[in-house]
Every structure is written in structure tokens, then in C-alpha cells.
């Protein structure tokens, strides 16, 4: 594998991407509409369709994405565990906890062994 060639190709590809980004910026700055905004009334407020929402709460919770994926992909596993062990009987709860703790201890031993 010729690494010099690949480096050149990467530079050309990234250069093409940035060159086109500059063309788009040029279109924006030269277009008549970009200079037209008149600050009057409440048009520079966020459009919320009548809802009220403070600006400082506008953020995307990054942890939500990961948990949603985990919930979606592991939902069936979770349901099976619940159906199997969560029967409202004390002994099945005890069995569930013992299995879970045994699993964690085995995992810990393996990790300590590897490290």
C-alpha cells in the first residue's frame, strides 16, 4: 500500500470538500437575501408555534441517544429476564440476584485475569 499516494488523495479529497464549502459561503454572502433582515417586531424570536420554551434549555441530551439504542436493541433480552425471574415470588427474586451477582463476579475475575 502506497501511503504517500493515499496521503495525497486524502488531501485532494478534503481540499475539494473545503473548496466547495467556500463556493457555498460565497453564494450566501453575495445573495441579496442575506443582507435583508430588518430587526422589527418579534421575527427574530425562535419560531415555536405558540409554545414557550426558554433558550437555555435548548440542547440535545447526548446520553438519551445511547440509552435509546440500548433500550431498543436489548428490549427483548430485558423482557425475557423479567418474564423468567420477576414473578413477585421471593425465591425467584433471590435466584435472579444470585445469578446476576455470580455473573458480575465471573466478569470481574476474567477482567482481572486479562489485565
Amino acid at each position, binding site marked *: 500500500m502506497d501511503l504517500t499516494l493515499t496521503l495525497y488523495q486524502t488531501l*485532494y479529497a478534503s481540499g475539494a470538500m473545503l473548496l466547495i464549502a467556500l463556493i457555498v459561503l460565497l453564494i450566501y454572502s453575495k445573495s441579496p437575501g442575506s443582507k435583508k433582515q430588518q430587526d422589527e417586531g418579534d421575527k427574530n424570536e425562535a419560531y415555536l408555534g405558540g409554545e414557550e420554551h426558554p433558550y437555555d434549555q435548548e440542547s440535545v441530551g447526548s446520553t438519551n441517544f445511547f440509552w435509546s439504542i440500548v433500550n431498543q436493541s436489548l428490549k427483548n433480552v430485558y423482557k425475557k429476564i423479567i418474564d423468567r425471574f420477576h414473578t413477585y415470588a421471593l425465591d425467584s427474586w433471590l435466584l435472579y440476584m444470585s445469578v446476576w451477582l455470580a455473573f458480575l463476579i465471573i466478569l470481574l475475575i476474567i477482567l482481572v485475569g486479562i489485565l
Partner: protein
Amino acid sequence: MILDVQAFIDILWFLVAVVVFPGFLFTFLAALLNQWYTRKVFARMQNRIGPKYVGLSGVLQPFYDFLKLLSKESITPKFGRSRLYVLFIGIGIGSCISTLLFLPISPFRIQSSFDVIIFIYLGLWSSVAFAIAGLMFPNMFSSIGVSRLLMLMFVFEPAWVISLLTPVVLVSKSSGVLSFSVAETVERFSVIWSNPIYLVLTLVSFAAALVSLQCRLGLQPFDIFEADSEILAGVFTEFSGVKLALASLFHDIEMFVGAFLIVFLFLGGAFPFSLNLAQFSIDTLVGILVIVVKFLLVVLVLVAVKASSARYRIDQAVSFFFKYPLLIALAALIIATIV
């Protein structure tokens, strides 16, 4: 001195490829013509006429819409970042267009061993850039739209990348030298037709790529991140005037480039005819015609699915992708690596 002249010519061809063909000008025209075709076909499927008045059969309507939006007042809401937004939309458009430089039609071709890695890296930028651009305006509905888009990216991007890799791996393996080059995949596409297993794997990946593209573009049933009537216009809520024009152009370019790449990587471009743009002949003309027909068919499938399906909920879309396109594409890639 000879080296300098060669470097100068190379840079000149690079600029021609980026700005003219298959770069910005060509993609701009093709994407807006594709928008006209999409709107016309979609309208006919709903028993409407579609664009009609500007140009022959309304063919100039997308150009008129774009120019009109450029001249309209562009409102930037409080705490919004217009220039940063345009920069990211520009990077998104740039990432789409620069992937075309890997195809054999480009006068300046980016080609080396393992260039598929750069190709994928560029392709991933378009969705990321659009999500970041959407976050430049503080709006509750934009944030919800972006969070939905990011959630979908976890599933549709791997499916898209894995399905694109399958024909590249197949062609690369059959040549004996593991080059993993995009241009070589297109040029040696005939080997896929010579082996029935290769053909089946390519067709399976083709189906997964089509579904992933439908989701990348936010077409129904995956229009979850712009969900009209549910979260206003989602990511698009605060886009107006020039900003809306550029967002719309970005969407059109993403659709054109996505369908174009599918035509070249899964359907072999001009295959079974040859395409040599440097030397004009009847074969070249037929080759161009074949590419256009294949492209229109791919877009027709996308529009037909859009016209005949209702929107998924976010959890339905995620579990659908886990169950079908992602799994199928992954299985095809694993089998392609083994056989």
C-alpha cells in the same frame, strides 16, 4: 521544470473537476433537474400535475424556486449562527460532491489502494454536517429534529457503509490484489455478473443501500426528523430565505449523489457498455444513456416508496433497521469476505 508543469496541469484538472465536472456546476444542474423529475413523478403518483408553468413542462421550476429564495429576507433568530450554519451546509455539499471524484467519469480521479476509506469518510460528513447545521439555531423543534436525526444515524449510516463495501470487497477479491478501490470496482464490474453468488450478494446489498438512502434523505417512511404536523418542520423549522435555499439544494445534491453512487457501485454505471468521456463515440453516447436510465429507475423506486408509505415512529424505524437492512447488509459483507 517538467515536474512543475505536470503539477500545474494536475491542479488545473483538479479545479475543473471540483468546480465544473463532475463538481459543483454539473451537480447543481443535475440535482435541480432531478428535483423536477422527483416532483413530477411524485405528483403523478398522487394524481396531480406537478410543476408546470416555468419552462417546458415546468422543468425550470426548481431553478426559479432557488433564485427566488436567494432574494427573500433571510431571518436569523436570536442566538442563531448564520455563517456557521452556511459553513456546515457547504461542508455537507462539498463532502457529497467530492465523492464523485472517485468515479471513473472524473477528469481528475482520486484513486489509490484502500481509497474506499477516504470515500466512506467523506460520505459520513454529509449527515454529520447537516445535524450540526441544524443545531445552529436554538429552537425546541429543531433540537428534537436533530436528536431524531442523530438517533437514526446510528442505524442508517452503518447500513449504508456496509452495503457500499460489499461490491468493493467482491471486485477487489476477484482481482487477486486487495486494492479496495472505488474506481476499480466500477471499471471491473463485469466480474460480479460472471459469478452468481457475487450477483446475489450485490443485489442484497443494493436493496439495503436503497433503504439506507431513503432514510438518509428523510423520505417517507423515514421523514422522522422533519415530521410535518408533529414537530413543525423539525430540523428545517428556522431555515428561511437563502438558508432554506441552501438546505434544499443540499438535500437535492445528497439525493442526486446517493442515487448516482448506487448506479455506479451496484449497477456498474454504463455496464454492459463502456464509457470513455475523453473519446467521443456512439458507445459513449449509449453509455451515458444507460447511466441516465439506471439513475431515473433508482430515483423512481425511492419516490414510489415515498408516495406509498406512512411515517414510522422513531423506535419503529430503529428496530426496522436493526432487523432488516443492517443485518442483511452485514450478512452479505461477511459472506463476501468469506467466499
